[in-house]
């Protein structure tokens, strides 16, 4: 608190000394704006293309800025993209898979992390070490046996095959355990004396205190699962069970050069994650810092 107020006082001091806009500030803004244009331009291109008449995408007579600012609004592209492949189905599949994966991962990780962080039991260190040890093993190593296992079980091309392997990660457990360890124990000890059960402590004390870490894990799992392309590509065969990324790739394989439709599909895939980011931005930034410190 004290250092923070000192910091802001100092900041005020320097900013009151500073002229409204120094030359160096203009240079900094130039860098920042150039960066922003580079980041946004491809997205503008995507949106603009998705709203064009198919014939206007590749035309030698076009005016250059018509690639960046929509001048035509062919909403029909979206309707067509939605219908030419079962897009609604892809959406629902993605939402279903992502929701269960995320819930499953956060719930099981939090429970396991509680055991590792707060409870004493034989084998605790050994089991925790085995979690840690697998964290640097690339996914490519386990991918093949897991595929074979699912195949033996007859689960290939089922939702189970997409969801279950994504739930139990060492990373989620590790991250939440580290966070739980930073929380003070006093409250839990007091609750224990008052006769609160272990589950009560976990549910009523630890989880409410861990909202930032839980939100971070939720967002990262959600994002990873939403983007995940390779695993569903491996285990799914039927079109009607594809999640969005595989569905979109399938769409591309059918309509390789229908750029207006492909871009309409791309916009539709990006939209939900964009909305999530705008609302959950704080957790993204804090979460990244959280993961970076422990490296």
């Amino acid at each position, binding site marked *: 608190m004290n250092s923070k107020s000192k910091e802001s006082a100092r900041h005020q001091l320097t900013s009151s000394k500073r002229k409204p806009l120094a030359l160096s500030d203009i240079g900094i803004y130039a860098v920042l704006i150039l960066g922003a244009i580079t980041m946004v331009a491809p997205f503008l291109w995507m949106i603009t293309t998705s709203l064009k008449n198919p014939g206007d995408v590749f035309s030698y007579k076009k005016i250059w800025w018509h690639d960046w600012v929509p001048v035509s609004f062919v909403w029909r592209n979206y309707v067509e993209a939605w219908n030419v492949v079962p897009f609604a189905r892809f959406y629902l599949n993605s939402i279903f898979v992502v929701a269960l994966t995320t819930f499953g991962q956060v719930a099981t990780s939090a429970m396991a992390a509680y055991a590792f962080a707060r409870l004493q039991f034989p084998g605790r260190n050994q089991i925790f070490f085995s979690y840690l040890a697998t964290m640097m093993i690339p996914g490519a190593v*386990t991918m093949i046996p897991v595929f*074979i296992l699912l195949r033996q079980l007859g689960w290939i091309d089922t939702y189970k095959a997409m969801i279950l392997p994504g739930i139990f990660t060492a990373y989620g457990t590790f991250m939440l355990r580290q966070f739980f360890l930073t929380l003070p124990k006093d409250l839990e000890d007091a609750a224990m004396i008052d006769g609160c059960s272990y589950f009560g402590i976990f549910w009523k004390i630890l989880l409410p205190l861990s909202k930032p870490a839980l939100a971070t894990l939720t967002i990262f799992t959600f994002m990873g699962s939403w983007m995940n392309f390779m695993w569903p590509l491996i285990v799914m065969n039927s079109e009607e069970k594809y999640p969005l990324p595989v569905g979109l790739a399938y769409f591309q394989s059918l309509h390789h050069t229908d750029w207006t439709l492909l871009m309409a599909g791309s916009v539709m895939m990006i939209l939900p994650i964009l909305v999530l980011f705008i609302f959950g931005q704080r957790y993204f930034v804090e979460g990244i810092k959280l993961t970076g410190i422990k490296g």
Partner: protein
Amino acid sequence: MSGIKNKTKEAITAYLFLAPNLIGFMIFTSIPVIASLALSFMKWDLFSPPQLVGFENFNALFRDSYFWQYCWNTVYLMMAIPFSIAGSLILALALNQKLKGMVFFRTVYFLPTICSGVAIYMLWRLVYNPDFGVFNMLIAKFGDLIGVPLKGPFWLTDEAWAKPALIIMSVWQTVGGYNMILYLAALQGVPRDFYEAAEIDGANSWQKFWAITWPQISPTTFFIATMSVIGGFQAGFDPAYIMTGGGPNGSTTTLIYYIFNNAFKWHQMGYAAAISWVLFLVIFAVTLAKWKLFSKTVHY
């Protein structure tokens, strides 16, 4: 007596809390790791029974010229890493000036990270279109300007340009993402007194950066660099699958793509497992080097 009872109760509770995750972890991680190692000493096409072949997969691997080509591709594509790190640092330094609108810029820079995935790779296929893509249009415009007809390369279908194309895209995608945020956090952690002391000594911005900022944020640089290398060895499947199909002529096939093809296209499960273990050993070596080097090169 009740102490022992409590201890037992605590242990049972712990196992109950642990069980859902631990069982899943064993089924989908620990046991598969062991199974994968066993598999790498076998030949198995999924249909006929598996055969134990000893080190044959590994021997074949070292004589497989495709394997070496794809190793080279994987390393080549990591050329994106230094550019991306330098860009992240520059953007973070600019954002750290605490001028107006920084949150807006930070949000905009993060967009490519948020939206990564199949949709973005499809977009970049269009960006690299030889006739109407952004790059070649800019090149042609530039040609008009200087009065020389210029024509850009066939980015994704030209063996010489496909890898640079993926590198440029990867820099765009990562430069404003996680690394920039980590740098920003690191920069905010550098004590202001250091700069004030340097100012009294008459240091200019350039000197302040190299004498204070760079050494102070070196743990972050080190963390980012090693994580990027570890990630880089496992990268390259999604963009190549969508944009180039691993071609032209295998020039964008990375190790992970080769594992995918071997396992799920050609059903050479044992061979694919062997490659994945070589990949693991490389990553393991990088991780060890990271631990060893960390204490030596990083200034606190």
